[in-house]
Protein backbone atom coordinates (compact mmCIF):
# COMPACT_ATOMS: atom_id res chain seq x y z
CA UNK A 1 0.00 0.00 0.00
CA UNK A 2 1.41 3.34 -0.92
CA UNK A 3 0.41 6.71 0.34
CA UNK A 4 1.19 9.79 -1.64
CA UNK A 5 1.53 12.67 0.77
CA UNK A 6 1.03 15.82 -1.21
CA UNK A 7 3.77 18.38 -0.79
CA UNK A 8 3.37 19.41 2.83
CA UNK A 9 4.89 22.28 4.73
CA UNK A 10 7.12 21.21 7.62
CA UNK A 11 7.05 23.63 10.52
CA UNK A 12 10.40 24.14 12.25
CA UNK A 13 10.84 23.50 16.00
CA UNK A 14 12.12 27.05 16.42
CA UNK A 15 8.96 28.58 15.00
CA UNK A 16 6.78 26.35 17.20
CA UNK A 17 8.81 27.37 20.27
CA UNK A 18 8.36 31.06 19.43
CA UNK A 19 4.58 30.54 19.20
CA UNK A 20 4.61 28.73 22.57
CA UNK A 21 6.54 31.62 24.14
CA UNK A 22 3.99 34.11 22.73
CA UNK A 23 1.09 32.02 24.07
CA UNK A 24 2.65 31.84 27.55
CA UNK A 25 3.34 35.59 27.51
CA UNK A 26 -0.27 36.34 26.50
CA UNK A 27 -1.48 34.09 29.35
CA UNK A 28 0.57 36.23 31.73
CA UNK A 29 -0.97 39.38 30.20
CA UNK A 30 -4.54 38.07 30.69
CA UNK A 31 -3.86 37.23 34.34
CA UNK A 32 -2.23 40.64 34.91
CA UNK A 33 -5.06 42.55 33.18
CA UNK A 34 -7.66 40.77 35.33
CA UNK A 35 -6.20 42.53 38.40
CA UNK A 36 -6.69 45.97 36.83
CA UNK A 37 -10.21 47.35 37.11
CA UNK A 38 -11.26 48.55 33.68
CA UNK A 39 -14.98 48.41 34.40
CA UNK A 40 -16.87 47.33 31.32
CA UNK A 41 -13.70 46.75 29.32
CA UNK A 42 -12.34 43.83 31.37
CA UNK A 43 -14.42 41.23 29.54
CA UNK A 44 -13.77 42.53 25.96
CA UNK A 45 -10.01 42.78 26.68
CA UNK A 46 -9.91 39.23 28.11
CA UNK A 47 -11.84 37.90 25.09
CA UNK A 48 -9.62 39.80 22.63
CA UNK A 49 -6.48 38.24 24.16
CA UNK A 50 -8.16 34.81 24.12
CA UNK A 51 -9.07 35.29 20.43
CA UNK A 52 -5.46 36.26 19.65
CA UNK A 53 -4.16 33.13 21.46
CA UNK A 54 -6.73 30.97 19.64
CA UNK A 55 -5.60 32.42 16.28
CA UNK A 56 -1.97 31.56 17.03
CA UNK A 57 -2.92 27.95 17.90
CA UNK A 58 -5.10 27.62 14.77
CA UNK A 59 -2.64 29.18 12.33
CA UNK A 60 0.62 27.65 13.56
CA UNK A 61 -0.09 24.55 15.68
CA UNK A 62 -3.07 23.40 13.61
CA UNK A 63 -1.45 24.48 10.29
CA UNK A 64 -4.55 26.38 9.16
CA UNK A 65 -2.19 28.71 7.25
CA UNK A 66 -1.18 25.89 4.93
CA UNK A 67 -4.59 24.28 4.47
CA UNK A 68 -6.54 24.47 1.23
CA UNK A 69 -9.60 26.64 0.52
CA UNK A 70 -12.12 23.95 1.59
CA UNK A 71 -10.91 23.85 5.20
CA UNK A 72 -10.29 27.60 5.36
CA UNK A 73 -13.68 28.73 4.06
CA UNK A 74 -15.49 26.08 6.08
CA UNK A 75 -13.69 27.38 9.18
CA UNK A 76 -14.73 30.96 8.44
CA UNK A 77 -18.33 29.73 7.93
CA UNK A 78 -18.28 27.93 11.30
CA UNK A 79 -17.04 31.10 13.03
CA UNK A 80 -19.67 33.24 11.26
CA UNK A 81 -22.36 30.79 12.37
CA UNK A 82 -21.04 30.98 15.93
CA UNK A 83 -21.12 34.80 15.77
CA UNK A 84 -24.73 34.74 14.53
CA UNK A 85 -25.71 32.24 17.24
CA UNK A 86 -24.12 34.22 20.08
CA UNK A 87 -24.95 37.66 18.62
CA UNK A 88 -28.63 37.09 17.93
CA UNK A 89 -29.26 35.30 21.24
CA UNK A 90 -27.60 38.12 23.10
CA UNK A 91 -29.47 40.73 21.08
CA UNK A 92 -32.76 39.07 22.00
CA UNK A 93 -31.91 38.93 25.72
CA UNK A 94 -30.49 42.45 25.92
CA UNK A 95 -33.48 44.17 24.28
CA UNK A 96 -36.27 41.99 25.62
Amino acid at each position, binding site marked *: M*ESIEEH*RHITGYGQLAVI*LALLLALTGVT*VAVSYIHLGFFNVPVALAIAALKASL*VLLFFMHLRHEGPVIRYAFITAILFLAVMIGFTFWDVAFR
Partner: protein
Amino acid sequence: MTTRIDTAGARIGMWIFLYSEIILFGGLFVLYAVYFYDYPELFAKGGKELNRIIGSLNTVVLLVSSFTVAASIAAIQRGRKGQAMTFLAFSIFCGLVFVVNKYFEWGAKIRHDIYPNSATLQDGEPGLNIFFGLYYVITGLHGLHVIIGMALLTVSLVLVMRDRITASRYVVLENSGLYWHLVDLIWIFVFPLFYLVL
Protein backbone atom coordinates in the same frame (compact mmCIF):
# COMPACT_ATOMS: atom_id res chain seq x y z
CA MET B 1 -2.13 -2.14 -7.60
CA THR B 2 -1.51 0.68 -5.19
CA THR B 3 -4.12 2.10 -2.88
CA ARG B 4 -3.97 5.84 -2.57
CA ILE B 5 -4.81 7.19 0.85
CA ASP B 6 -6.70 10.46 0.67
CA THR B 7 -4.99 12.36 3.47
CA ALA B 8 -6.56 15.68 2.44
CA GLY B 9 -10.00 14.08 2.68
CA ALA B 10 -9.17 12.61 6.11
CA ARG B 11 -8.14 16.05 7.36
CA ILE B 12 -11.26 17.73 5.93
CA GLY B 13 -13.38 15.14 7.74
CA MET B 14 -11.58 15.86 11.02
CA TRP B 15 -11.99 19.62 10.59
CA ILE B 16 -15.73 19.26 9.92
CA PHE B 17 -16.00 17.29 13.17
CA LEU B 18 -14.06 20.04 14.95
CA TYR B 19 -16.52 22.67 13.63
CA SER B 20 -19.35 20.73 15.23
CA GLU B 21 -17.36 20.70 18.49
CA ILE B 22 -16.89 24.47 18.27
CA ILE B 23 -20.66 24.91 17.89
CA LEU B 24 -21.29 22.50 20.82
CA PHE B 25 -19.11 24.55 23.18
CA GLY B 26 -20.40 27.74 21.53
CA GLY B 27 -23.91 26.86 22.73
CA LEU B 28 -22.62 26.59 26.30
CA PHE B 29 -20.81 29.92 25.96
CA VAL B 30 -24.11 31.51 24.83
CA LEU B 31 -25.63 30.33 28.13
CA TYR B 32 -22.66 31.80 29.99
CA ALA B 33 -22.95 35.15 28.15
CA VAL B 34 -26.68 35.52 28.83
CA TYR B 35 -26.44 34.68 32.55
CA PHE B 36 -23.30 36.79 32.96
CA TYR B 37 -25.36 39.68 31.57
CA ASP B 38 -28.07 38.96 34.18
CA TYR B 39 -25.79 38.39 37.21
CA PRO B 40 -22.44 40.17 36.65
CA GLU B 41 -21.65 40.70 40.38
CA LEU B 42 -22.50 37.14 41.41
CA PHE B 43 -20.44 35.70 38.52
CA ALA B 44 -17.48 37.79 39.74
CA LYS B 45 -18.06 36.51 43.29
CA GLY B 46 -18.18 32.91 42.02
CA GLY B 47 -15.03 33.44 39.95
CA LYS B 48 -13.12 34.58 43.05
CA GLU B 49 -13.90 31.25 44.73
CA LEU B 50 -12.03 29.38 42.00
CA ASN B 51 -8.32 28.71 42.44
CA ARG B 52 -6.46 31.01 40.04
CA ILE B 53 -3.14 29.29 40.64
CA ILE B 54 -4.44 25.85 39.60
CA GLY B 55 -6.27 27.50 36.67
CA SER B 56 -3.12 29.26 35.45
CA LEU B 57 -1.02 26.12 35.96
CA ASN B 58 -3.47 24.08 33.88
CA THR B 59 -3.38 26.73 31.14
CA VAL B 60 0.43 26.48 30.98
CA VAL B 61 0.26 22.65 31.01
CA LEU B 62 -2.19 22.59 28.07
CA LEU B 63 -0.25 25.19 26.04
CA VAL B 64 3.01 23.27 26.51
CA SER B 65 1.32 19.98 25.56
CA SER B 66 -0.09 21.61 22.41
CA PHE B 67 3.44 22.65 21.50
CA THR B 68 4.82 19.13 22.04
CA VAL B 69 2.02 17.60 19.92
CA ALA B 70 2.83 20.03 17.08
CA ALA B 71 6.53 19.21 17.56
CA SER B 72 5.84 15.46 17.37
CA ILE B 73 4.23 15.99 13.94
CA ALA B 74 7.25 18.04 12.82
CA ALA B 75 9.50 15.19 14.08
CA ILE B 76 7.61 12.43 12.25
CA GLN B 77 7.64 14.51 9.04
CA ARG B 78 11.45 14.48 9.30
CA GLY B 79 11.39 10.73 10.03
CA ARG B 80 12.66 11.11 13.60
CA LYS B 81 10.67 8.34 15.24
CA GLY B 82 12.30 8.48 18.69
CA GLN B 83 11.79 12.23 19.04
CA ALA B 84 8.16 11.97 17.93
CA MET B 85 7.53 9.28 20.57
CA THR B 86 9.18 11.35 23.31
CA PHE B 87 7.09 14.40 22.41
CA LEU B 88 3.89 12.33 22.36
CA ALA B 89 4.63 10.64 25.71
CA PHE B 90 5.29 14.04 27.26
CA SER B 91 1.98 15.39 25.86
CA ILE B 92 0.06 12.46 27.36
CA PHE B 93 1.81 13.13 30.69
CA CYS B 94 0.68 16.80 30.47
CA GLY B 95 -2.90 15.63 29.92
CA LEU B 96 -2.60 13.45 33.03
CA VAL B 97 -1.28 16.42 35.08
CA PHE B 98 -4.25 18.49 33.88
CA VAL B 99 -6.81 15.84 34.90
CA VAL B 100 -5.16 15.29 38.32
CA ASN B 101 -5.22 19.07 38.97
CA LYS B 102 -8.88 19.12 37.98
CA TYR B 103 -9.55 16.28 40.42
CA PHE B 104 -8.05 18.24 43.33
CA GLU B 105 -9.85 21.42 42.23
CA TRP B 106 -13.29 19.77 42.03
CA GLY B 107 -12.57 17.84 45.24
CA ALA B 108 -11.88 21.08 47.15
CA LYS B 109 -15.10 22.64 45.79
CA ILE B 110 -17.18 19.60 46.71
CA ARG B 111 -15.73 19.58 50.26
CA HIS B 112 -16.88 23.21 50.57
CA ASP B 113 -20.41 22.05 49.67
CA ILE B 114 -20.26 23.63 46.21
CA TYR B 115 -21.59 21.14 43.67
CA PRO B 116 -24.81 20.87 41.63
CA ASN B 117 -27.83 20.53 43.95
CA SER B 118 -25.76 21.13 47.12
CA ALA B 119 -27.51 22.86 50.04
CA THR B 120 -25.23 25.93 49.84
CA LEU B 121 -26.03 26.53 46.18
CA GLN B 122 -29.72 25.57 46.43
CA ASP B 123 -30.42 28.00 49.27
CA GLY B 124 -27.97 30.68 48.08
CA GLU B 125 -28.16 33.31 45.37
CA PRO B 126 -29.53 32.06 42.01
CA GLY B 127 -26.63 33.68 40.13
CA LEU B 128 -24.02 31.68 42.06
CA ASN B 129 -25.97 28.48 41.49
CA ILE B 130 -25.98 29.16 37.73
CA PHE B 131 -22.28 30.12 37.73
CA PHE B 132 -21.22 26.88 39.39
CA GLY B 133 -23.70 24.86 37.30
CA LEU B 134 -22.04 26.22 34.15
CA TYR B 135 -18.60 25.71 35.71
CA TYR B 136 -19.25 22.01 36.31
CA VAL B 137 -20.89 21.40 32.90
CA ILE B 138 -18.29 23.26 30.82
CA THR B 139 -15.14 22.14 32.68
CA GLY B 140 -16.62 18.63 32.96
CA LEU B 141 -17.29 18.37 29.22
CA HIS B 142 -13.86 19.86 28.57
CA GLY B 143 -12.27 17.35 30.98
CA LEU B 144 -13.98 14.52 29.09
CA HIS B 145 -12.39 15.89 25.89
CA VAL B 146 -8.98 15.91 27.60
CA ILE B 147 -9.40 12.22 28.48
CA ILE B 148 -10.53 11.33 24.92
CA GLY B 149 -7.60 13.36 23.54
CA MET B 150 -5.16 11.43 25.78
CA ALA B 151 -6.62 8.15 24.45
CA LEU B 152 -6.16 9.33 20.83
CA LEU B 153 -2.57 10.42 21.54
CA THR B 154 -1.85 7.04 23.17
CA VAL B 155 -3.18 5.23 20.07
CA SER B 156 -0.94 7.46 17.91
CA LEU B 157 2.06 6.72 20.15
CA VAL B 158 1.52 2.96 19.77
CA LEU B 159 1.11 3.32 15.98
CA VAL B 160 4.35 5.33 15.75
CA MET B 161 6.10 2.65 17.81
CA ARG B 162 4.85 -0.08 15.44
CA ASP B 163 5.87 1.94 12.35
CA ARG B 164 2.26 2.32 11.25
CA ILE B 165 2.67 6.09 11.41
CA THR B 166 5.68 7.12 9.34
CA ALA B 167 7.11 10.13 7.52
CA SER B 168 5.07 9.23 4.44
CA ARG B 169 1.84 8.45 6.25
CA TYR B 170 0.96 10.31 9.44
CA VAL B 171 -2.62 11.51 9.02
CA VAL B 172 -3.79 9.60 12.16
CA LEU B 173 -1.25 11.48 14.25
CA GLU B 174 -2.21 14.75 12.57
CA ASN B 175 -5.93 14.29 13.26
CA SER B 176 -5.28 13.25 16.89
CA GLY B 177 -3.15 16.38 17.17
CA LEU B 178 -5.96 18.54 15.75
CA TYR B 179 -8.32 17.14 18.40
CA TRP B 180 -5.78 17.90 21.13
CA HIS B 181 -5.35 21.48 19.88
CA LEU B 182 -9.14 21.94 19.95
CA VAL B 183 -9.10 20.95 23.66
CA ASP B 184 -6.46 23.66 24.13
CA LEU B 185 -8.51 26.22 22.13
CA ILE B 186 -11.58 25.69 24.31
CA TRP B 187 -9.54 26.04 27.50
CA ILE B 188 -8.12 29.34 26.19
CA PHE B 189 -11.68 30.72 26.43
CA VAL B 190 -12.75 28.82 29.58
CA PHE B 191 -9.81 30.12 31.62
CA PRO B 192 -10.52 33.89 31.45
CA LEU B 193 -14.31 33.42 31.56
CA PHE B 194 -14.37 31.37 34.76
CA TYR B 195 -11.14 32.07 36.64
CA LEU B 196 -10.52 35.71 35.80
CA VAL B 197 -13.99 37.37 35.85
CA LEU B 198 -14.00 40.60 37.78
